[in-house]
């Protein structure tokens, strides 16, 4: 190396205010920028984002096309299966986007730097949430367009309720993401599997591909306590009967508020627990 001279700090850098909404937004967008850089650095990641939902949509779209040739009225209902797949993917992809982005910080052994910076835990959560939606849009918009051109299914046919469905599913996925991230913080990458499996637990319970009435009665109560169930019921109601029940949706949003609070409390609890147990020192190793 060449001779090291004393590092000059020059004019000490001006630091912007550290408190207030603008400061919080600046830190959130700084972190989102990091995720954008990461996605831009790998074309394969970008392709992978679209690849899996596209395959799902193709598989279920062709099944739908096949069933449409049968006499079952349900099978002939336009787009129920594709609609289910696309809405499920909103939930699943957002959840995975949240969790894997968090895990990525641990893989890269960067979490120590983040947690010792002025970034607040709720800002980390906000950045992960925002990024999970951006990832979702990058992933789902091309797939939704492809579903229109290949199978003639237009997701926008769901009309305004689509925006509400979208909100409910995204909020649920954030709750799940918070719990997964908290558990991984506390127990390390050994609990990584949870990030993948937690959303799948909802698949049978949320009645993605069948109505709630199919479940045994006691399980119906469990299903109705989950916000996504109301989305899938609502979607079927619109596509099969052209009826939209807003009350169901309000219930789902109210449930979401509860789950989000639980999710954030769980994340905070596990973060605190990780700080007590010293797990943050071993992360990524």
């Amino acid at each position, binding site marked *: 190396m060449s001779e090291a001279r004393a590092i000059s*700090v020059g004019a000490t850098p001006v630091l*912007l205010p550290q408190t207030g909404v603008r400061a919080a937004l600046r*830190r959130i967008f*700084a*972190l989102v920028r990091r995720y954008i850089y990461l996605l831009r650095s790998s074309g394969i990641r970008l392709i992978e984002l679209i690849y899996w939902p596209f395959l799902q949509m193709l598989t279920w779209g062709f099944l739908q096309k096949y069933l449409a040739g049968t006499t079952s009225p349900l099978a002939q209902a336009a787009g129920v299966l594709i609609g289910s797949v696309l809405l499920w993917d909103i939930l699943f992809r957002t959840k995975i986007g949240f969790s894997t982005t968090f895990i990525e910080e641990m893989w890269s052994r960067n979490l120590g730097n983040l947690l010792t*910076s*002025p970034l607040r835990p709720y800002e980390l959560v906000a950045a992960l949430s925002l990024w999970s939606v951006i990832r979702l849009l990058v992933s789902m918009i091309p797939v939704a367009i492809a579903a229109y051109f290949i199978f003639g299914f237009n997701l926008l046919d769901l009309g305004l309720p689509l925006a509400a469905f979208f909100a409910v599913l995204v909020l649920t996925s954030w709750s799940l993401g918070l719990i997964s991230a908290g558990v991984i913080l506390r127990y390390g990458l050994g609990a990584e599997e949870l990030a993948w499996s937690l959303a799948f637990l909802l698949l049978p319970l949320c009645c993605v591909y069948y109505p709630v009435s199919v479940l045994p009665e006691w399980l119906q109560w469990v299903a109705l306590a989950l916000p996504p169930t109301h989305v899938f019921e609502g979607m079927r109601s619109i596509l099969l009967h052209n009826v939209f029940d807003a009350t169901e949706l309000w219930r789902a949003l109210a449930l979401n508020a509860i789950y989000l609070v639980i999710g954030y409390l769980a994340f905070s609890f596990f973060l605190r627990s990780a700080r007590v147990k010293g797990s943050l020192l071993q992360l990524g190793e």
Partner: protein
Amino acid sequence: MTERQTTKEPSASSAAPVLVRDLVKVYGKVTAVDHISFTLEPGTTVALLGGNGAGKTTTIAMLLGLVVPTSGEVRVFGADISNDRDLVAHRLNFQSAYVDLPMRLTVRQNLTVYAGLYGVADIDSRIAYLAKELQLDDLLDRPNGKLSAGQKTRVGLAKALLNAPELLLLDEPTASLDPDTADWIRRALKGYARERGATLLLASHNMTEVERLADRVILLDAGQIVEDGTPRELIETYGRETLEEVFLDVVRGRASGSARRDLDPPIAVMEEAT
């Protein structure tokens, strides 16, 4: 004014950079840090020296708020770090050989992200300035993962200096570096501390590093402070030639000064023989 309000508003000028009082950290049945107390004065470079498991990293982690103490008090610039870290987080920074910056991001991207997190107003000029000072100009657009260990350390240092911290915490800053690069880093750190008037606390078991950098050494063994003084004082107290010999005396449980010779005749005999 209530005591709580006083805690919430640490004095920017008068509070010591670091005040540790009766600090304890217990993991299950293991006491990692055992009732230690020390204060760092502004502008000093202090080394936490000790063998593996002595409690250096845990102490640094508690100063950073990464680990919650079992009991005791940690104040950074007057703020209780466990509860009010947000008040002072922008005034300190951290570098460790065991924490990385994202590998896929370029050096410039990494520094841009962290400059945003620390609230640096003119990000581009600060990065350009540090790149020049730390000889990173040619590396700015290379992914962090494609850099050598020495280059990564310089990038980590650039990240740690983005906000020109008044308190810089370093955990084994030159671990796994060749002697030339390690020496370069040490001189750079020394220069920074001098010019900024910054307080440096480094955890290390590299004696050369400690002797060259530190004004004061806090020697830890089994989570306790066993010695606290300047490197010269410790060497004289133990009647040794180097800090490394002092360190070996401590970790092998030998007493200091004349007491050491009384309690440990074989060593004294060996010394006289040589």
